[in-house]
């Protein structure tokens, strides 16, 4: 599948500009175990690039190699034009890094931590301004362990921006957060991109990749399974719709299974009602066929839903496995 590129509102995506990340055949082995197996991809300026996959797919190892926290066994990459093998010091000056676990000093205040980290870089943003960006300005004198989970995540995001980076890595930025806190964080990530930085984020939440990312790289067992925009990935599915029909009486299973252009048929019941759920290539045709079947069975369609397929479906169809599994 050829990577496609989409310009989204507010981004300064430029296909002709030199890539922000160019990785070629990144491989990482731990003894017998191959965590990454020949991963090649390109990240362009101004995009939010998502790396989506289940736990253990190699997402964190991959970003750690690009951040200089880990070394590839084979392959090479440039980040912001610098070789990660020979110029990692230059890379570290210019990228922002948010690590998976909360990782800051428990005896310093938020302001002190930001000032401390700012002192490690040639240029740095003012602590108060940074905290305001994530609505933590009134917590400047609090310590990490006085913050809620969502606040901690917001802080770890803003701590990654202390050097006004051109590229920011977010590793599972919303892991363990409730839906409200997660949506807040998505907006913050969009703000980061809108302020001119390129964002690379890893996630195992399909809806996060769909809602947030300009392009998504699906990873499975150390390899890239597919790269495209979320919509492009779904469109690439053989059957890109989910159809769900609720009827008063059961439809004939064999006839439903024989409907052209359908797959993954599931029959269930909800009380007295019968539900058929399936994936369809051509939603209008399938809906018509199902309505006719209901009519023939002497019942009627009580409820009908047509949904686009999700990245979950894409992941399943590309890897044969459930994303959340």
């Amino acid at each position, binding site marked *: 599948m050829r990577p496609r590129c989409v310009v989204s509102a507010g981004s300064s995506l430029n296909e002709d500009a030199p890539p922000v990340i160019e990785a070629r055949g990144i491989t990482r082995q731990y003894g017998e175990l191959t965590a990454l197996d020949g991963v090649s991809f390109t990240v362009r300026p101004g995009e939010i690039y998502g790396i989506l996959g289940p736990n253990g797919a190699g997402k964190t190892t991959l970003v750690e190699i690009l951040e200089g926290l880990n070394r590839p066994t084979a392959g090479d990459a440039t980040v912001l034009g610098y070789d990660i093998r020979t110029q990692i010091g230059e890379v*570290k000056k210019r990228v922002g890094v948010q690590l998976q676990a909360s990782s800051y000093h428990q*005896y*310093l205040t938020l302001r002190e931590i930001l000032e401390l980290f700012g002192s*490690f870089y040639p240029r740095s943003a003012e602590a108060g301004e940074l905290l305001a960006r994530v609505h933590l300005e009134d917590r400047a004198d609090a310590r990490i362990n006085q913050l809620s989970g969502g606040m901690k995540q917001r802080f770890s995001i803003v701590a990654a921006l202390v050097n006004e980076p051109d590229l920011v890595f977010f590793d599972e930025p919303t892991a363990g957060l409730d839906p409200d806190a997660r949506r807040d964080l998505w907006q913050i990530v969009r703000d980061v991109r809108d302020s001119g930085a390129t964002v690379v984020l890893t996630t195992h939440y399909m809806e996060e990749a769909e809602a947030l990312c300009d392009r998504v790289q699906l990873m499975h067992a150390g390899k890239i399974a597919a790269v495209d925009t979320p919509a492009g990935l779904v469109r690439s599915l053989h059957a890109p719709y989910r159809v769900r029909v609720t009827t008063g009486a059961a439809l004939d299973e064999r006839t439903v299974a024989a409907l052209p252009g359908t797959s993954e048929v599931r029959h269930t019941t909800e009380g007295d009602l019968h539900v058929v759920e399936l994936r369809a290539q051509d939603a209008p045709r399938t809906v018509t066929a199902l309505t006719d079947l209901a009519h023939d069975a002497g019942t009627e369609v009580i409820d009908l839903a047509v949904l686009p397929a999700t990245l979950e479906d894409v992941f399943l169809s590309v890897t044969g496995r459930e994303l959340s599994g």
Partner: protein
Amino acid sequence: MRALFGASLKMVVRDKQALFWALIFPIMFLGVFRLFSFDSFGTTDLLVSVQDEASPAQQALVAALGESDFLDVTVAESTLDLASAEAAIEDDTASAVVLLTSEGAEARAELIHGISDPIGASVIEAGVSSVVDNVNLQLQGGRPPIEYVAASVDAEDTTFFEFLGPGIIGMGLMNFATISLAGSLSRYREEGVLRRIRATPLPPWKFFGSVVLAHMVVAALQVVIIAVVAELLGANVLRGGIPFLVLAVLGTVIFLNIGVIVAGLVHGRGAVEGAANAITLPMMFLAGTFFPVSQLPGAVQLAVQALPLTHLLVAMRAFVEGESVISQWPELLILAGWIVGTAVVARFTFSLEDNG
């Protein structure tokens, strides 16, 4: 670099547990020991049972025990056996009983005591055994090969509290340096701070260096504060002057190195704190913090020479007593060896690349 050092310093000072070991714990000891009257402290009620009043060995031993400063000796009216000795201890007639028996020309002294605290128990055991040793020497006649008297003459100049002062300072330094540094480093590793630092352009050794340096600065402040408190309580430690303070801070390096080694070898914060305590606690009691090493039994006396705190305290006390720096060269040489040796081991056991 200044911001980094300032932050490291703040982190040490704000760590309440580190401050407890650094200041509260030693000052608490000073205060508690000051409350005791040292004339009666350490005096043990000793009941001596004489089986054969005609035995010269038994006579000599009763006399020698009676001369001892830390024993309040009563001679039993009748000869006791083991059961009646135990009964005397149980009903608090005495804290300890010495049963003297003779078989032909050979005399035998058996100590039974009911002292459950380890310091008290080792004091009575070491004390009585040293009296027996002395009597043995006297009875064998001739001059003892080692003039033991000189040491006790020296001790007369120093009150127990004066003896205690440097011990408490050394103990405080050791506890703080080892426990706090090992704890901080393991925390930085486990909470991912080290990892987060490695993602910045800051060379990790600078971060490590600033943490160690902050501990050294706090240790220096700690020495001054405890020394002043000890001085005010009458321990006269400030007589040791600059050499005393410099030695104390240099000695801290050994315990900082040990802290780094512990953090390198042991993983898991609880385990690191446990290991640091397992090293410092026995050393605190054995290395002559509270009582002279000379009061320990012979074999233990030899063994505690292997502890760095023993040598640090010998040199610190010598400086307080006005000895010259040169005169302490053997101790200083041993301490220098400890500094270098622990630094080398620390270098190879602790890794900044560690991901926990």
